[in-house]
């Protein structure tokens, strides 16, 4: 009982919200491209340049809000290049996405070296983070107040965006256009909707949120930039997008599940369970749940996957590596 109390308390909920927010933001960004029929694995890179330029902008201007704008501008630039190559020049989206991720990783390291003469991380230099928002009157709400107050602004934005996007896809003209372009491009064409323009718009909206997610990492979650600090969050978002098909509600569920198992696993470590085992838990849980979540929409694919996994297991039991879930999330 004491162990349970140590694990399950209000700080766990708070930690879940904190760990969920950056992935949720970037995954919601990815929902635009997913809905528009573009498979965008460049989220990781967009997030990374967002984080980097948010820090640069803040140091240069002294204001974290201008920093956020710089981060978003950088991510938008990357998103524009992505759209140019994928939509206009019809390049393979996976190759372009990967290339831009590699570019983002290398570019941030090189620029860090050029500007600050260091590798590793940037902090100090007058860097200030986004201020945490203390909601008024939460004292009266007790533990619930503690749960919903005191996060940095972009955390609130991430969660508010979920209902906004649901409305956007069901009510707004642009949202409907994006869905039509993704689901039935021929129909869109027949209706006179410019597929190119819609896909560009979706890519840029994606860049906007990915940039915000990056800025949240470097100015909200922490107040620093570190080489490769997106640490696979963009790839986790891609996994969630594949299974959620870009639906905001399913994205929220997937991200919350991942955030919860991540927060829980960090606490499990203090009970003396090996870190290697514990650190794989969030990825495994998220993957299994996402499989279950999408079972109805694509039973055939999943049955085939299970069957082939079964075949592989019966032929040679060591062909399936247990850590593929974590490996896949690494760049």
């Amino acid at each position: 009982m004491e162990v349970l109390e140590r694990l399950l308390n209000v700080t766990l909920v708070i930690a879940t919200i904190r760990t969920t927010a950056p992935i949720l933001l970037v995954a919601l960004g990815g929902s635009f491209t997913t809905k528009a029929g573009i498979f965008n694995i460049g989220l990781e890179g967009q997030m990374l340049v967002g984080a980097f330029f948010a820090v640069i902008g803040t140091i240069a201007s002294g204001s974290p809000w201008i920093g956020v704008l710089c981060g978003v501008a950088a991510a938008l630039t990357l998103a524009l290049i992505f759209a140019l190559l994928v939509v206009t020049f019809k390049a393979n989206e996976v190759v372009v996405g990967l290339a831009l991720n590699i570019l983002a990783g290398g570019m941030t390291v090189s620029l860090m070296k050029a500007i600050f003469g260091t590798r590793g991380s940037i902090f100090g230099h007058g860097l200030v983070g986004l201020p945490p928002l203390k909601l008024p009157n939460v004292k009266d709400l007790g533990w619930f107040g503690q749960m919903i107050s005191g996060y940095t602004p972009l955390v609130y934005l991430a969660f508010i965006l979920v209902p906004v996007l649901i409305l956007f896809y069901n009510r707004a003209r642009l949202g409907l256009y994006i869905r039509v372009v993704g689901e039935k491009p021929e129909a869109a064409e027949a209706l006179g909707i410019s597929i190119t323009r819609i896909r560009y718009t979706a890519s840029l909206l994606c860049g906007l949120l990915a940039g915000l997610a990056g800025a949240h990492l470097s100015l909200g979650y922490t107040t620093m930039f570190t080489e490769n600090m997106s640490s696979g969050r963009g790839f986790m978002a891609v996994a969630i997008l594949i299974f959620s098909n870009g639906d905001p509600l399913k994205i929220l569920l997937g991200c919350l599940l991942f955030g919860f198992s991540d927060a829980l696993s960090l606490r499990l470590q203090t009970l003396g369970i090996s870190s290697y085992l514990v650190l794989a838990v969030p990825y495994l849980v998220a993957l299994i749940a996402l499989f279950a979540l999408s079972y109805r929409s694509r039973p055939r694919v999943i049955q085939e996957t299970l069957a082939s996994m079964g075949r592989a297991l019966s032929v040679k039991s060591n062909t399936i590596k247990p850590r593929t879930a974590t490996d896949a999330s690494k760049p």
Partner: protein
Amino acid sequence: MSSWSRRLVALCGASAFALMSQAALAKDVSVAAISGYFAQGFGVAIVEGLKKAEKDLGVKVKLVDTGNRALDYEEQFNNLAKGGEYDLVFVMGWELVDALQKAAEAYPNTKFVFIDGVLDSKKIIYANFAQNQGSFLAGALAALMAEKGSEVEGLGDGKAIGFVGGRDIPVIRDFLVGYEQGAKTAAPDVRLDAVFAGTFDDPAKGSELTMALYGQGSDIVYNVAGPTGEGVLQASAAAGKYSIGVDVNQCDVAPGHVMASMLKNANVAVYDLVKDVVDGKTLEPGSIHTADVKSGGVELLLCPGVADKIPADVKEKLEALKADIASGKITVATTTQ
């Protein structure tokens, strides 16, 4: 001239020549250092040690910044070693290990010194740090403070201390065993919660882990996790609690909340090795030169601004423990040998 006197002249000449050549040798010691990190933390300390050697011992120093051109690391090593003019080549940074090992095979006459770590190769010289001893002192400080509990500003009565490691690997375990032993020696009743982030470059995760440790009663958390650990230090400021820095002086990352920093004084280690060469000592390939508490290569620096909150008896106990380690009365466990 008799054969006698001729022999004498010859002898004098030979010894004069020997004397001269020895003087020339001492003057002509030149050392190089290669790394991508000269502008920060550990690298700054290396440069400092080399500059001191340049000034005090009159050796020639060449610094090679690798930048991040990962593709030509090997070429940079070749350029350094092929002339054979350097008596020692210091190497720092794990990304250089492959190139270093190849160069050590290809140029057996050049003495490469790998800083902060020990590899399998017997052709390289190692400048290592007794991180377990420094961590022992960090553990002792954390545990003694946790025992004081709410007597000290910013501490609770959880009677627990935390540790955040990068990955669960032997090098990091070496810090942990020292930290644990220090804590148990100083205050046996204090609980230690040790966790690993699984990554060295995710400060957000470091911050989250630290919040979890604080939530479970720890008020002081020691980070051994590179940039992930910088998230640990920032979390201590956000939560109004304490943390302990590692490797270099990290007091400035979160002023007022980083209680101390476990320093590896690379400047001391580098200078001592250069001095050995100048003094004519031969550094054997494969030898490990460990800078420890005794040599001053490893120490626990109490951060200004927090140091005056640390009670005098805690400071006294720390000094006593430090003296015991230096004298060999306390042997600190290690995982790396």
